[in-house]
């Protein structure tokens, strides 16, 4: 009996079942809190035609940016895709499609996807290019647009500590989109800095309950920083 032990020992196992043209939802903000090893495995695997839902697309040569090198991404759903020359090139060439989505709407679309809410109304984007082609509607004298939720075949998540049951906690602002991504994958894979035994994390501290998580792998992280700013 395997019970609730979700730990896998290889990246191949962690991303088993990922196929061309699937949708992958990724946690992370910029390069902070990204599942580095899972992204590298997607590159190694060579899966193509991916739709990737992530606030950003990494930078040239790091993070999700490495999936651009072999043109593995067909479409990005993101709020901000600067800092990436290869991205720019592929976008201008028409090799890459991008669906710009306001950051809060993106976070809420992932949450709604995981929470069984197919759509919600938000004032964000009303009257802007984001609202074009979307239903709008008035509530209490204000206009809102209808936004549909997002789910994906896979979600890839970076945790600080995960227990064998998949319960996760995140470190500082590396939390960001990870908890929502974790809920929105049909298969959710967590790459953690540390794997602990069930019971070591206090029940109330757990930020992603294991019910959302299918696989857990121990990762090693470079944790590259985009902008080192200091006071001294």
């Amino acid at each position: 009996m395997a019970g609730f032990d979700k730990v896998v020992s290889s990246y191949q196992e962690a991303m088993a079942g990922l196929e061309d043209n699937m949708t992958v939802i990724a946690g992370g903000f910029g390069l902070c809190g990204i599942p580095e090893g899972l992204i590298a495995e997607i590159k190694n695997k060579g899966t193509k035609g991916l739709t990737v839902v992530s606030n950003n697309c990494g930078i040239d040569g790091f993070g999700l940016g490495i999936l651009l090198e072999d043109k593995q991404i067909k479409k990005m759903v993101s709020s901000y895709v600067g800092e990436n020359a290869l991205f720019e090139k592929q976008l201008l060439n028409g090799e890459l499609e991008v669906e710009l989505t306001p950051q809060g709407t993106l976070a809420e679309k992932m949450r709604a996807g995981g929470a069984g809410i197919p759509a919600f109304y938000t004032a964000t984007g009303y009257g802007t290019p984001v609202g074009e082609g979307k239903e709008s509607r008035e509530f209490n004298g204000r206009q809102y647009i209808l936004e549909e939720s997002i789910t994906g075949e896979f979600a890839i998540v970076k945790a600080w500590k995960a227990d064998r049951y998949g319960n996760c906690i995140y470190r500082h602002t590396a939390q960001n989109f990870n908890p929502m991504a974790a809920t929105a994958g049909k298969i959710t894979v967590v790459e953690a800095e540390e794997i602990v035994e069930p019971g070591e994390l206090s029940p109330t501290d757990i930020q992603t309950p294991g019910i959302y998580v299918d696989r857990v792998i121990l990762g090693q992280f470079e944790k590259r920083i985009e902008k080192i700013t200091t006071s001294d």
Partner: protein
Amino acid sequence: MSLSREQIAQRVAQEFNDGDYVNLGIGIPTLAANYVPADIEVMLQSENGLLGMGPYPTKANVDADMINAGKETVTAATGAAIFSSAESFAMIRGGHVDVTVLGAFEVDQNGNIASYMIPGKLVKGMGGAMDLVAGADNIIVTMMHANKHGESKILTECTLPLTGVSCITKVITDLAYMEIENGEFVLKERAPGVSVEEIRSKTAGQLRVDGDIPEMTFV
């Protein structure tokens, strides 16, 4: 004389009230944190999931897991809270942030703002700006009054794709502090040494000037 970036930031900070939760955009808005009056406290919200942003860390304390929405390394202030992006935007979208300060390419007399996209140029994305302008009641835009060619960016109607509609209430430029009311810019203060005539000449939108317009004061 037109204001420097620092002076714009300084004037912005005068709009803060004690106990305000404030979101500062990248650029001039971020500088406003340096000019919070000594007799008040504000708490900075960073939309990547931090309420209570502190100063930059010392070199020894740089932590890749501790960044702000500009992807800069930061610290947490005493009493800070850290949370997910969904929670962060629940806060923003739900109107819990008291003041939002952000830059813009254009604003118009109906409170519309264009700040994220210039057609023909590559679009990098709106980040959290659309949520911020949709969520806050008190939005201050910081910008230059005119572009390099002297063309006004304070318009009757924005020409660029919008970030938000009917949402901007205050504009602080290098020349003036204006509020937007009933479809017009209301001139409240002039930059020191800048005449009403100069402001008028660089304002394409409807400008209301009631009586004498005081100069801004900086402590």
